[in-house]
């Protein structure tokens, strides 16, 4: 009676026999070299970024990397030391970044707002220009200039740990003025706007609250405690995933969109129908 392991064992021995018989083959050295290079390169690619992210404490090499990136990508507006640039006529080319903290950089660069495409009323969300490692390096560098709010921990922004109903109340009381009741966003003065919050990651929502980017006020932990922030994130994620039970959502934008639909679709279709019905003439 054969044991179940005997066949693989036999195969292995056959394989090793084949390998050892061919180790003198002219191409064997090259094959080994290629295999080793693949293994090492693959392992590096797989492990290296995660390894650098996992080091939370900013190492001095990370700060140095950040400083180099900063000099290339940010310094033209924010100054070489992040001190900001004010032109002679008083217009601010780029504000000072001393004390804005890692959270501000992680938000601005992580959502693609920085680097700005052009000096506008407001930096808009666009494809992210740096990878995670570079963002971490930039954050570490700016954080090293002066103490400021740090990038939040994963568990602080986890929506599943928040209270949706409470978050809704807090959101309506503190955020809906600009972002609309479901985070659809809205217009502010002089071309500025409160962006839509749909699809924004919990971490970035949290960072926006603690750093107050652009026209947004800062909601520090005294105004809105950390738990409340988590509730707000929970509300936003819940409302985002919620289907529209009434049918087509038409942007959840309220009465202006509804009025347009009532005229364009409602009256439009009905006038079409009226035109059709009067062409159905009778003989009498």
């Amino acid at each position: 009676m054969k044991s179940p392991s005997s066949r693989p064992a036999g195969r292995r021995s056959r394989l090793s026999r084949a390998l050892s018989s061919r180790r003198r083959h002219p191409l064997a050295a090259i094959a080994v070299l290629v295999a080793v290079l693949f293994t090492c390169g693959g392992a590096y690619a797989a492990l290296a970024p995660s390894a650098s992210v996992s080091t939370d404490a900013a190492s001095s090499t990370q700060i140095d990397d950040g400083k180099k990136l900063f000099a290339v990508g940010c310094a033209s507006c924010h100054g070489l030391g992040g001190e900001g640039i004010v032109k002679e006529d008083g217009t601010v080319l780029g504000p000072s970044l001393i004390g804005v903290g890692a959270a501000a950089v992680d938000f601005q660069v992580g959502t693609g707002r920085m680097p700005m495409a052009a000096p506008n009323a407001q930096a808009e969300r666009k494809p992210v220009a740096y990878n995670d490692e570079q963002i971490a390096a930039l954050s570490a560098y700016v954080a090293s200039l002066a103490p400021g709010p740090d990038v939040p921990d994963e568990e602080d922004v986890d929506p599943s740990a928040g209270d949706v109903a409470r978050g809704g109340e807090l959101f309506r009381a503190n955020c809906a003025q600009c972002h609309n009741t479901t985070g659809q966003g809205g217009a502010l003065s002089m071309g500025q706007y409160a962006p839509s919050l749909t699809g924004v990651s919990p971490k970035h929502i949290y960072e926006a609250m603690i750093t107050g980017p652009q026209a947004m006020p800062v909601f520090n932990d005294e105004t809105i405690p950390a738990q409340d922030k988590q509730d707000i994130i929970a509300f936003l994620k819940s409302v985002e995933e919620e289907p529209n039970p009434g049918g087509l959502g038409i942007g959840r934008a309220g009465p202006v969109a509804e009025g347009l639909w009532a005229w364009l679709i409602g009256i439009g279709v009905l006038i079409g129908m009226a035109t059709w019905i009067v062409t159905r003439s009778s003989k009498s």
Partner: protein
Amino acid sequence: MSAIVNGAGKVVDFVDERITASNWLKRNIRKVFPDHWSFLLGEIALFSFILILLSGVFLTLWFKPSMAHIVYDGAYTPLRGTGMSEAYASTLELSFEVRGGLLMRQVHHWGALVFLAAMSAHMLRVFFTGAFRKPREMNWLVGVTLLFLGVATGFTGYSLPDDLLSGTGLRIIEGGMLAIPVVGTYLSWLLFGGEYPGDDIVSRLYPLHILLFPGLIILLVTVHLMLLWYQKHTHWGGSGKTNKNVVGAPFWPVYVFKAGGFQFIVFGVIILMAATIQINPVWFWGPYDPAVVSAGTQPDWYVGFLDGALRVMPPWEPEIFGYPLTLSVLIPAIILPGLILTPLALYPWIEQYATGDRREHHVLDRPRNQPVRTGIGVAFITFYLQLWIAGGNDFFATVLDIPVNWITRFIQFGLIVLTPLSFWVTKRICIGLQRRDRDTLLHGRETGVIMVSPSGEFSELHEPLDPHSAYDLAFRERQLPIDPGPATDANGVPNPSYKANRRRARLSRFYFGDVVQKPTAEELEAAQHHELERGDRQQELTSGQQ
């Protein structure tokens, strides 16, 4: 079968012998109604109103018009544990727990939007075609009152669910009342039962919304239709159609089925919209809290123009004897509606005064043949639309990606510049169309055939109109401005009413001074003669070619 018919016949006979209705019925059941799509706009309004009544009755069975404060414990989890009024909670219950409740809510709301849109479109049709002229001025007044009642019913309904939007709308109403000098504060306290928002407003608006306003609407719709029935429907002019007849299909057996069928089409379209497009999702807006105002807060479209007026009004607040006079709210919220409604209601008489035309009219005007009236109508639409856009300035700023301040500033100027400009442009377009009609009458239809004369001159051949098409263009009346007459009579005695006459003549010139008159019989004769000559020449040429 015949037994049933016989039985029914006996019942009818019984009734007829006692109230002799058959004569009246015989006369009325054959009432003639003309066919045109624009005559069905009022029917859209009527049928959507019926649908609103039906769905509204359904909603009253569950809605609780109470502002009593409760903590929500219903089916919609994202709001569980939130404090709210019973009105809002029962709206949530209707939306999520009552079978068919959300559909009914959406039917009611879409129906209301379509109802007001149809009424407005109907009013514009009546205005542009001159259907408001004698003898229908009274019905115009009834119609304007209906529109006002429709807006009032809509607004009170918008305020009932006590969600964030409805509460903010009421806050603006309160602001408008407070802006009224001296009595404003008292009025506001009277309406809200004390300091805003109080605990009374929902239960006070409820009877207005479900009883008083709809009751008045039903009453006035009845008057509207009885007057229409009695005065007969207007019709478009054309050969065979005069001021003394109505050309169309009889009520029975044609029109009653068309109208009946159209009723189901209107029901169908609105219910289809309600079933597929979400409207007023109050669970997203949240319960009303006086401390909270959301971005993107707007009223339903028919109140939008008032919100827009508030948004574009400059911040004027002069002080009078130490008291502030809040013109920035008083003008857009209180004075403007009056400034719009009064001329709207009085327009038939204003035009009568200006034109001196006091005759009955049953044949409609083509809008181009009344360039000034059409211009006034388009200027009003331009004015109104701009205010409506201003009411959603933040919405349009977000959607179009332009600064909200630009929209506001553009409309501030647009109201003053674009409104008269649209009047002028419309009037010129109408006059241009009149000129073309006149040319077509005089020279016939353009054929597109180009003729070269032996001397090398190019000209287009025209084909004479057939008599029916010619009549369609020519049946309208000549419109001559009033002549004020001499200031003094033959003996040099001054005419005492000369000044009034001159004022009227000036208004009349404003209306008819630039109108292109239809050609006289002589002009027509001469032109036809001319065309005939050219036709002969063409005959010669073509025969010469062959």
